Each structure stands twice: as C-alpha cells, then as structure tokens.
C-alpha cells in the first residue's frame, strides 16, 4: 500500500514538472527564432515585395509588436491549445502537426519494433557461450551498426534496393497512383481497418526502406544494452542462488536473467522512440518521408516561426510524456526502484 502511494506521489511530481519543462523549451525556441537571421515576412512575400505590403503583413502577423507582447501572445495561445498559423500558407499549425506526426510515429514505431526484434535476438544469441563466435559477432554488430553514419547508410540502402534492384520505392509514403486511406493518418492501421489491401501493400512497400534503415541503425543499441545487462545480471547473487537450487541454465536465463536485463532496455526503447519522433530527420530527408522532422526542417528554412514553435513544443511534450511513462513503467515493474 505504501509503495503504491509512493508511486502515485512520484508520478504526480514527474507530471507536475512537465509543464515547467515545456514552458522552458517553448520560451527558448521563441527566443532563438527571433535571434536567428532571416525575416519571416521576406520568406512569405519575397524581399522585393513593396514596403507597404511588408508592413501590412508584419502588422497582420503581430511582428510589429514588442518582443514581450509577441511572447505573451504566444504563451496565451499555447495555454489555450492554439499553436497559431503557418506564416507561409496560413494553415493551422495543429493541422500541420496532425498531418505529419502520424507519419513520423508510424515510421518510428515500426522501426523500433524491427530494431528491438533484431537487436535483442542478436544480443541474446551469444549469451549461451560468452566470448564465442556468436557473442563476438553480436558485439561487432552492436558496435558496427551504432557507428554507421545514418545518412550514408540511408543513401546506400536507397541506391541498392530502390535504384539498382528496383524492388522498393525510392521515397515517399504512399504510391502516387492510389488514394491514401482516410482516417487517423496512420496509413497501415487505416488501410487494414478499411480492408484496403492495395493501400496496405503500398504503405508497407514505402515503409520498408526507411523503417529498415532506422531499425538497422538502432538495433545495435539494443544488442549492446541487452548483452551487457544480461552478462551483469547473470553474475548476480540471486542467479547464483537459482543455479544452486538446481535450475537449468535455460531456466536461469529465461526466468531470472532476461526479465532483469530487459528493464534498462525498456528505458532505452522509451527514450529512443521519443527522440525518433523529431530526430529521424536524415531518414525523412533521404527517403522523402513526409514526417514531422522534415516539416520542421522546411519551416526552419522558411523562418516560419509558428510552425517551428508548434512542432518543437509538441515533440518536447511527447518526449517528456514518453520518458515519464517509461519511468513509471520501470518503477512499477522493478520493486528495487525507490522514489
């Protein structure tokens, strides 16, 4: 009962700190964008637009107000869930995020699942014979994939599987000749729910290369993390105790070693998926994946302040929420965690 109360208090504290963290991030982004060179009005109207048109646009966007007034207006909107409108085409930032976030989430989750399956399998495969061939291979795989430059791998994969072999699409998220399924924006889910198998197949085809590349790059982290944690766990006293009770090595590993070794891996997975939402830029650029990271890059280039601010705040919120959720999950699963 006491532990449950402690867990609740811990959860409340973590969640209470989240708005403070988001406010700090939002403020920092607001300030950095104003300091960066480049005028959003020029980006919208072009540098040759008449001065009167520029002044009118500046006034309409509120850019003629003092920095403090702009900041307060921005915070007020944020508190009311209003992320503003894109400067370039006046599209609500919420709509932009609504269109691009599912693409990034779909890519990230699929990549993470692939990475976890492959990475954990490789990490686990060598444990029966430490320093054996499989273990050595796993170690090399972990280090190698971790060290590969993402942009180079993505280009190579694209050139081999899409350009040379022609097996898969070079880029994009969906076949241009088909109509994307309506719904949540998660094309795999939407097409499966609507039994639209042509769309489902098209989505899978477009997902394979970007998700596979991301998975390849991430899987080494899982391999290394599992391998190290499992070896450390198998040296623990309670494992020795299990062995002394006459359990087979297989039972020792599966019942006692693996569950404990997977807890840190769970934390890594959580942080990875959170960072992937906004951090898969190189993959999104290479494969023309219309996700939130690609949109963020375009908005930065265009000095589209509201879009940059909105996307950064939403990504930050997701990172905070996922990390809190992972912490709570680990705390709930691991009785050794204290608050």
């Amino acid at each position: 009962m006491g532990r449950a109360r402690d867990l609740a208090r811990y959860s409340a504290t973590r969640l209470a700190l989240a708005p403070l963290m988001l406010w700090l991030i939002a403020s920092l982004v607001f300030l950095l964008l104003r300091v960066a060179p480049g005028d959003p009005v020029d980006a919208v109207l072009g540098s040759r637009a008449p001065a009167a048109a520029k002044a009118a646009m500046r006034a309409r966007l509120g850019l003629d107000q003092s920095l403090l007034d702009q900041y307060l207006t921005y915070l007020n909107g944020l508190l009311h869930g209003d992320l503003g409108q894109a400067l370039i085409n006046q599209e609500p930032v919420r709509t932009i995020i609504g269109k691009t976030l599912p693409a990034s989430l779909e890519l990230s989750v699929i990549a993470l699942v692939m990475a976890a399956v492959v990475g954990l399998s490789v990490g686990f495969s060598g444990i029966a014979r430490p320093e054996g061939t499989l273990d050595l291979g796993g170690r090399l795989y972990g280090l190698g994939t971790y060290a590969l430059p993402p942009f180079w791998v993505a280009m190579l994969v694209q050139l081999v599987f899409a350009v040379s072999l022609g097996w898969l699409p070079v880029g994009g998220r969906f076949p241009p000749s088909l109509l994307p399924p309506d719904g949540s924006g998660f094309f795999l889910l939407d097409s499966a729910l609507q039994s639209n198998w042509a769309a489902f197949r098209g989505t899978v085809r477009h997902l394979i290369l970007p998700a596979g590349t991301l998975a390849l790059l991430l899987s080494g982290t899982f391999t290394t993390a599992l391998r190290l944690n499992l070896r450390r766990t198998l040296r623990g006293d309670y494992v020795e105790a299990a062995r002394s009770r006459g359990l087979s090595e297989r039972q020792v590993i599966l019942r006692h070693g693996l569950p404990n070794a997977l807890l840190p891996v769970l934390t890594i997975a959580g942080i990875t998926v959170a960072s992937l939402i906004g951090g898969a830029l190189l993959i999104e650029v290479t494969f023309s994946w219309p996700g939130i990271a690609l949109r963020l890059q375009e908005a930065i280039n265009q000095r589209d302040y509201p879009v940059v601010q909105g996307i950064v705040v939403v990504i930050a919120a997701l990172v905070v929420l996922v990390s809190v959720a992972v912490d709570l999950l680990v705390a709930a699963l691991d009785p050794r965690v204290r608050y």
Partner: protein
Amino acid sequence: MLIGLVLALAQMGCQAPPPTTRITVASAGRISSLDPAQASTLSATQLISALGDPLYRLKRDGSLEPRLAASAPVLSDGGRTVTIPLRTDVRFHDGTPFNAAAMAFSLRRFLNIGTLSYVVGDRIASVEEADAHTLRLHLSRPSTSLRGLLTSINLTPISPKAYSSHQDRFLHDRFVGTGPYKLTRFSEHQQRLEPFAQYWGEAPRNNGLDLITLSNSTALYGALRSGEVDLLLSASIDEDQRHTLHQQAIAGDLHESVGPAMEIGYITLLSNQDPFQDPNLRRALAVSLNRTEISERVSYGLRRPLRALVPPSLPGGALASWPKHNPNQARELLRAAGYCNGRPLRFPLTFRSNVPADKLLALTWQAQVQRDLPDCLVLELDGVESTTIYRQLGEGAFKAVMLDWRGSYPDPEAYLTPLLSCTSVRGDHCVDGEAAISGSFWSAPGLQTTLLETDTLVGEARRNALDRVEHLSANGAAYIPVWLDSPRAWAQLNLSPPKFDGSGQLMLAELERRFEGTTNN
C-alpha cells in the same frame, strides 16, 4: 537477419503495377501555395500552368499564342490602353463561365494582394470590363514588356465564384481555373490531376497526372532510373546526376527536353563599400573569371557561359556584353589599384550553402585565381544558407555573393529592372530601389532613364536601348554574369518526348504514354 526480413517483406511489393495512362511526374520542392497571387516556385507555377490558362502563351519561336485571349492585344491611346478580346467558350472547373468580369476579378485580386505584384509594378492603372468578353487595361505609361507580362502564370484567371471568400486573402490548397486538368487532391508533397471534361481546348493526351515531390536530388534521380516515375522535372538536381541523365538521353535510354534558358547565375559585388567601391577592382574580378572552364568543370557544359544580364533567347538579349576572361588584364587592373606583388586583394565570396552548384562554382573560381593570379587575388569562401543571404542582401552584408535570377515573365525588363532599377541615386550608388535590394547598391548616370526608356520603345530602337543598358552595366561591373541555365525534363521512353513552351513551362497535357504496338491511349 535484418536484410532477410527486408527482402521477405519486399516480396509483398515486387509485382509491377499494371500499365496505366496516368503519368507520374516528380520534381523537387514542396508546394506550400497554389494561389497564383503568391506562387513563385518552379513546382508551383508548373502545376498552375496545368490547371489554368494564361491570356497568352509564349511560343518557342518568341511569338504570342492567344490562349484565353481571342486574338492579339490591341494598343490605343499612344500605348496607354490595351484591349484584349477574350474567348467566349471557356468555363472554369466549377462551371462558372469565363468572361471579362472573371478576368478583371483575377487581375484586381493579384494587384491587391499578389506577393509578386512588383512584376506588374505601377504599369496597370486600372482594369475595365469593356463588354462581356473584352478586357481593357489602362496603363500609367506605355509598356512594351506588357506583352511578356500577359503570359505570366501569376496572372492566370481564377473562378470568381470559388474565390469569392478569398478576394483579399490567399487560397493555398485549391485551384479553380480553366486549364486542361482539374485538381482532385492536394497535399504539399503530392497532387492528383484529372482531365477537365469541359476543357475548351485540345483534351490532354493522358488520363491524368500524379505529381510528387521528393526531397533530395538522389531520390529524384533514383526514382527516374528505377522507373518509379515517368518524368522528372527539376532544375535543382545535382550536376553529376544531370550529366548522367543527359548522357543516358544521348545514348537513347531516356527522352530529354530542354526549355528556354531563362535562369541566370551571377555574382553581385557590393559597390558602395571597400574594396569594391573602386570600379577597376570590380572589372578586374569580371575578367578573372573563366566562364567556359567553370561551365565545363561544374556543369559538364550544361550551363552555358553568360556575359550578359538578359538571356539571349529573349528579344534584345545577348550573350556577350561583359569582357572575356583575361587574367593579364585583371593583373594590370589590380596592380594599378595597389595590389599584387605580396599584397593580394583578399575578399570573402559568399555562396548559398544549400545550392551545390554554387559551392562548386566558388571552388572553381577560387582555384582559377590561385592558378592565374596567385599574388594578386585571394578568394575566401563563405557558405551561408540562402534564407539568411536574401534577408541580409539589402543590408549590404556581402562583399561578393553568388545568386541566380529567373524573370517572372519572358521579357528583358524582368531581368534588368530587378537588378538595376533605382529610385534614389547618389553618384554611382543606389540608395533606394531594386539595385539596393539586390545587394549591389550600384547605379550609373543615365542608367535609370535608359532603363525606363527601354520599356517604351519597340523593335530595333528597343534593342539598341537594351544594348546601352547592358554595356553600362558591364562597364560598372557590379554584377558579373556567370552562366545561363535551362529547365530540363527527362522522361521514360514509353512516354512521348516532353516539350516546353517559350516561358519554360512543360506542356504536361501533351504527354502521352505509348504502349507497345500503340501510339495513343
């Protein structure tokens, strides 16, 4: 294991899609606005050209072809009134009839909110509907370049009904025009176009278009190579890949089409500050540049060397107003200014870091002066992202910066005015005006008068005036033209060869898929 998984999953999609008469066109650059009053990117104007019709189209031979106009414009009142008869058989995609009221609505809207309204400048004083199918423009001054302006994609008419609630604001994700295609689906990265059944002109030769944008040059190149797209339209593809595609076209593996050369690449020198206040130093730089070598090294000769500001394909355009490469003359000019012999002129050359060709050009020029003028000239390269450059250009932030320019309509004025026009001149310096916005801050006695004069003259007299402007500019050397670029399109062999019109727009409706044993769809 991962590769095996990928290969296994790939089997799901290895079947080639069935043949279709729809055509997939790939280009670079997201389309953020389809509003003709705002659209400025090549991808956006290309899309609008398929969805709408201009009043006139410029043919490759330089003549005007009436599109929504019924015949050539009629000038009266000493060139201050332009009367344009309009077609009577045209409808917008929403069924609204096209007439003088619709055309006037579109023009007034552009003049009111158009971000590119500077292309019209102060020329059109008012727009009048003379009758149901006759439009009359009252000009503030006679304007020869109006002829080219009437071909501008930005003046494409839009349905007054569909835009009734967007008279004074942009409509970004829809377009209701009169063109051979109507837009049935729009996202920034993908657009779907279907033939418009009530189109007044010749029906498209395909069953529709799927336009996609890919975010990098390798993806564009790869998509064409793998057969994933039927046609690649891009000016922003990397030089190596352009060259490879060009070679493949020569070998007969692809169709290649080249549009009129409308984009100039040039270097702007800051003429109102040291060191380039001295015109001799600017002239020295102008003759230090070996354009032919740069063209070969950077673009494999696909970008043509240029020694003028106006593309030669335009009336009055020329290839050679600026002097040729002459390192000896550069050395003499630099010596006369006190440089060389242990005291080289060092200056920063800024290039757009997000434009690969610019970096290659900068590196090649740097190597040329190291070879030809090692004791006289040192270029210090500085890559800056283009948004920052354009923002700071008018503030005089760059001593020398590489840029490019494509006129909004096919007329010399669309090139000269944005670079040279100046509303406030002090000596050889432009204090306020386009020359200041362009970062050169340069003008010359009589330049502005001659520039304005060029827009009132016709024929030989205009060509002579344009020639005077070019030579004044070459002598001032605040701009150094480098090369001339053309839009290119590459298509698979099962497509008819693509064709550009005289304004550089690809005529998408004329694309036709050729199945084996057939010639039509």
